[in-house]
């Protein structure tokens, strides 16, 4: 076995996962908060006003990182769902299920901030264009995965059923991303591009990228924290979990 597979197997074992994420989570949350605050200060205070929308455009510093995060969370969930379905790795089941609520919140924030911005700028809260509709479908897919996971008694069967729903729903991700270029939508096209020049001034771009980095780190911290709890629940009867429970029991020295 080469080092990578060995590392993968080690990280995939519940006690190691519990220990490593326990060390990582505080640092991840701290880094996300710090980078996020710098990004927010840059976006809300330092970045200049837009030539057309003046200060109202600043909502993109929340809206865009959250929208990216919603899609990223879905891809992360689907990849873990795929591993869970084929290799039945427990950690992957748990990670997939842990990322659904986090992704759902990011998507909900995206829809809410979009509506708040849309009312004064476009003239409407909501319209059934391809981008908005597919983003709503994304939220419903997250909610469906959460619902299905909680509807089945057996945790591992529930995770497998929900993972299947999540995996099939991956077809929606390219639709969300490309909806603005495939169809005439009210929503504007892609501003920040990986290939080719972005259509945003660099003075506005750097806070946006910092906030995107912060939300990504926050996502992993939050998913790991959720996964740790589910893992302890699932492995409650096992030796390593019992040891942790005994060690943290009040009055036990």
């Amino acid at each position, binding site marked *: 076995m080469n080092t990578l597979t060995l590392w993968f197997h080690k990280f995939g074992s519940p006690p190691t996962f519990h220990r490593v994420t326990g060390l990582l989570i505080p640092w991840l949350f701290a880094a996300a908060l710090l980078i996020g605050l710098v990004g927010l200060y840059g976006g809300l205070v330092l970045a200049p006003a837009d*030539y057309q929308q*003046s200060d109202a455009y600043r909502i993109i510093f929340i809206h865009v990182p959250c929208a990216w995060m919603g899609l990223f969370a879905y891809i992360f969930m689907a990849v873990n769902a795929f591993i869970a379905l*084929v290799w039945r790795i427990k950690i992957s089941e748990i990670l997939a299920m842990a990322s659904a609520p986090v992704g759902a919140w990011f998507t909900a924030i995206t829809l809410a901030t979009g509506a708040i911005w849309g009312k004064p*700028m476009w003239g409407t809260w909501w319209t059934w264009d391809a981008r908005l509709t597919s983003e709503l479908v994304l939220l419903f897919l997250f909610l469906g995965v959460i619902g299905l996971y909680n509807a089945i008694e057996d945790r591992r069967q529930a995770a497998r059923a929900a993972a299947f729903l999540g995996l099939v729903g991956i077809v929606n991700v390219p639709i969300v991303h490309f909806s603005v270029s*495939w169809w005439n939508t009210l929503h504007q096209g892609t501003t920040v591009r990986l290939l080719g020049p972005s*259509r945003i*001034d660099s003075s506005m771009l750097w806070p946006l990228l910092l906030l995107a980095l912060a939300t990504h780190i926050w996502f992993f911290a939050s998913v790991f924290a959720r996964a740790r709890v589910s893992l302890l629940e699932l492995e409650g009867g096992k030796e390593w979990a019992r040891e942790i429970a005994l060690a943290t029991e009040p009055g036990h020295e």
Partner: protein
Amino acid sequence: MTPTRKRRLIVVGLILLAVGVATVLTVAALQQNMTYLFTPSEIIAGKAPAEARFRIGGMVKEHSIERGQSLTVAFVVTDGDDDMRVEYEGILPDLFREKQSVIATGSMQGGRFIATEVLAKHDETYVPRDVAEAMENAHRKHDVPLSADKPSP
């Protein structure tokens, strides 16, 4: 890889493939219905429904905005090739102005488009105000059309 895992991999892969193909076919079939808006040239070419309500999209033509009694307003929407006169009564969004992309919902009535809702489409460009002014001044100095650096709607 054990035979069970291999079998699962194939099954999951096939299901994903099937769902993917189904989605592509559905999206392709919906392409016609998914059209959010028609441009003035498409309307003149007869692609838009004659009776039903639909959306028209394009840029507000320069010097074409006529304000009438109270909230009535008329303007010309252009896509560069053809123009269409739009009439509307109501509150316009903040971003509504000349050379702004707009989307109006309504129906045709004898060569005019009677709108019941007018939405402003924002483009994907974000520029600080002073940079925009500097660019505008430079363009004016060198006689470049002002919308040259902007994407068409």
